[in-house]
């Protein structure tokens, strides 16, 4: 009898397995994208999560101005804009743009969205970015003027952010689970725990776009499962989440194309400047000289990515290559440590969160290279939620490693309360000046000065720019190579016609 059960089980298994093992093969117009983290809600005015903007921004909702694939500010919902005094910005809206619910987008909607962001009741995560706005004047249905209280050199950048996307006011209450916008794709469904599905917006305001009919974002967390899903043909593309070792593996596979580009993600070794011994600039410089960044890049990223020397990423228009300003030099590091009173080095604890595997890997190489200058680094892994609470919010740490993905995040060095606890009046002055300097050439000069000052002060050790590691099936075209904005613009993506 037992044997009969076993036989029956086997038959069932074979039947199930054999019964037409259809794989969702790539079909024209359809795309299945793997997404590493499930978004904490789809409302970009409620969460800054990149998992949210990675799906919604540019695809479902758009803003007046757009950062394009080259990092340039280009028209989007506003077809042009104008300012005479850098205080009053007038945007001329594109006509005939319709929300997914059929209603036309008008100047009153723009006014509503920005006023809502500024209203403390709404808990907009980026309200600070818009606090310079004094008054929003609707001239007519297609013309709106922002009167700023102060000159704000970043104003257009901020208007291009995910937090400044334009949505219809009647959908505000359901945006968290059903975002409505003007984008190339309409939101169709969110099966919690499994996928988000977008479908083509036939009425999109850019003619000929989008090219795809249907996009599915599937949530697969385990990188090895992502690799298997790609190889089995169950997903068409992985835009984020594969490790460098998986990318190397897929590079050898003729069925796939690998996209490695630049991003705004700067991976840093942060030192708590308010704690001994990191208050001493000589110690911080010694740490910079003492970390072999080339080895870190090899050990953690298989050599992919770019070594950084300061906190402006290569996609930033004001980027200066300072990666060789303080090269690996253990002898010099030791000398600096001796001058600072630590001829035999010291002990320190490095807290890293396995949420981001590259930080733990980098940490091991960092510890290995600092050992050679007498700094004994003890690694402690910490859960992400506790990292946020203890390290990031309370600055309860000596050393930590993390990637900062936000563009223009040099501003954090001007904030003495930020978890680096870097407090330099000189830097703060420079930064404040940069915020009100609108002339591009003058502003660039300030940015160069800021970068050089940071190298001198070494408030953190900049390790590398985390590269974009995307893999797709061959034949998928139109994806961005670099990622200057925290979005996955799929409007121009399509399958190459079969040969």
């Amino acid at each position, binding site marked *: 009898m037992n044997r009969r059960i076993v036989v029956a089980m086997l038959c069932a298994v074979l039947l199930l397995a054999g019964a037409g093992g259809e794989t969702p093969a790539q079909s024209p117009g359809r795309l299945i994208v793997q997404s590493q983290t499930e978004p904490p809600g789809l409302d970009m005015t409620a969460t800054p999560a990149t998992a949210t903007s990675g799906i919604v921004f540019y695809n479902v909702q758009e803003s007046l101005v757009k950062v394009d694939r080259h990092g340039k500010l280009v028209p989007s919902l506003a077809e042009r804009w104008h300012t005479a005094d850098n205080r009053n910005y007038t945007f001329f809206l594109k006509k005939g743009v319709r929300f997914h619910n059929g209603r036309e987008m008008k100047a009153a909607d723009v006014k509503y969205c920005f006023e809502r962001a500024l209203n403390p009741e709404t808990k907009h995560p980026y309200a600070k970015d818009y606090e310079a706005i004094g008054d929003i004047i609707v001239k007519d249905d297609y013309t709106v003027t922002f009167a700023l209280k102060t000159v704000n050199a970043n104003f257009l950048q901020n208007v291009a952010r995910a937090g400044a996307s334009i949505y219809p006011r009647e959908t505000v209450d359901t945006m968290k689970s059903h975002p409505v916008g003007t984008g190339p794709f309409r939101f169709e469904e969110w099966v919690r725990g499994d996928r988000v599905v977008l479908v083509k917006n036939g009425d999109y305001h850019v003619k000929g776009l989008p090219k795809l009919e249907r996009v599915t974002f599937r949530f697969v967390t385990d*990188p*090895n499962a992502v690799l298997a899903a790609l190889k089995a043909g169950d997903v068409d593309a992985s835009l984020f989440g594969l*490790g460098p*070792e*998986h990318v*190397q*593996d897929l590079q050898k596979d003729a069925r796939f194309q690998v996209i490695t580009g630049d991003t705004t993600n700067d991976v840093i070794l942060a030192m708590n400047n308010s704690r001994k011994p990191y208050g001493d600039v000589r110690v911080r410089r010694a740490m910079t000289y003492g970390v072999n960044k080339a*080895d870190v890049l*090899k*050990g953690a990223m298989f050599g992919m990515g770019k070594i950084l020397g300061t906190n402006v990423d290569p996609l930033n228009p004001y980027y200066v290559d300072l990666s060789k300003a303080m090269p690996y030099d253990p002898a010099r590091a030791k000398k600096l440590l001796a001058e600072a009173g630590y001829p035999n080095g010291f002990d320190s604890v490095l807290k890293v969160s*396995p949420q981001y595997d590259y930080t*733990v*890997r980098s*940490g*091991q*190489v960092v*510890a*290995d290279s600092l050992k050679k200058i007498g700094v004994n680094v*003890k*690694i*402690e*892994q*910490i*859960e992400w939620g*506790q990292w946020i609470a203890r390290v990031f919010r309370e600055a309860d740490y000596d050393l930590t490693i993390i990637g900062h993905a936000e563009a223009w995040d040099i501003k954090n060095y001007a904030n003495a309360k930020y978890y680096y606890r870097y407090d330099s009046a000189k830097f703060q002055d420079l930064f404040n000046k940069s915020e009100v300097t609108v002339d591009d050439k003058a502003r660039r000069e300030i940015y160069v000065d800021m970068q050089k000052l940071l190298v001198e002060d070494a408030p953190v050790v900049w390790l590398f720019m985390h590269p974009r590691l995307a893999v797709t099936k061959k034949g998928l075209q139109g994806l961005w190579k670099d990622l200057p904005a925290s979005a996955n613009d799929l409007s121009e993506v399509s399958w190459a016609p079969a040969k």
Partner: protein
Amino acid sequence: MARRRPLRHVTFTLGLAITLVLVAVAALSLLYTPADPLAMSMTGRLEGPSGRHPFGTDQFGRDILSRVMTGAVTSIAVGVIAVGIGAGAGVLLGLVSGYVGGWLDETLMRLVDAVQGFPAILSALLFTAVFSPGMAVSMVAIGLAFVPAFARLTRGSVLELREREFVVAARALGSRDGRLLLRHILPNSLPPLIVQATTSFPVAILAEAALAYLGLGTQPPYPSWGLMLKDAQNFLTLNPWFAVFPGSAIALTVLGLNLLGDGLRDLLDPKTA
């Protein structure tokens, strides 16, 4: 009785031999390893076995043989001590609960249910938040998770044995409760407990790796078998050997302990004279 010389028992002897060899390797690693288990080499990463690195190298070019040896200390210690804690506390609970019965049984067993029903990750996180990281903490954390299984198994046996003829007879002859439990009931409930203990061992080793990610237990760059096995998963195609060696080490240990357990079972069983 005289015939039961342990070393004549093939299973037991083989199990003992394997276990002793592993313990010896762990002890040796404290004094000597072929290479520094922490030394990195960016030019020799993810290599297969060679004369220089008999087990190959990991993603940082570290010698896998030396890391497996060093990892033995942690992994064997965690396995033995965590299972010991779980078995010790669980058996005690199970004996009392099963023997006394009634409301006490109900209360203790529902407490055990609560322990099992409480999300393990949550209790691990609580441990990381309250205690400073260390091996002892993770051993206790893992051991606690084993308590429900041992408690239930013991209780199940006690419930059954309590009513058996030889126990009833012993009670009628005036045996005290403690003596009854230790001399008559416990030895007869050992077989399932031994199986449970040996099968819990690899679970403990892997749980140690899971806790490491939360900051408890072994922290990188120090090795443990569980951590190596988890790491190796990412490099399956680039260097399959990376997984084979720590995986085999775990399997070998489990084999040794299983044989040892089976042998012990035979030797301790009053019925196989």
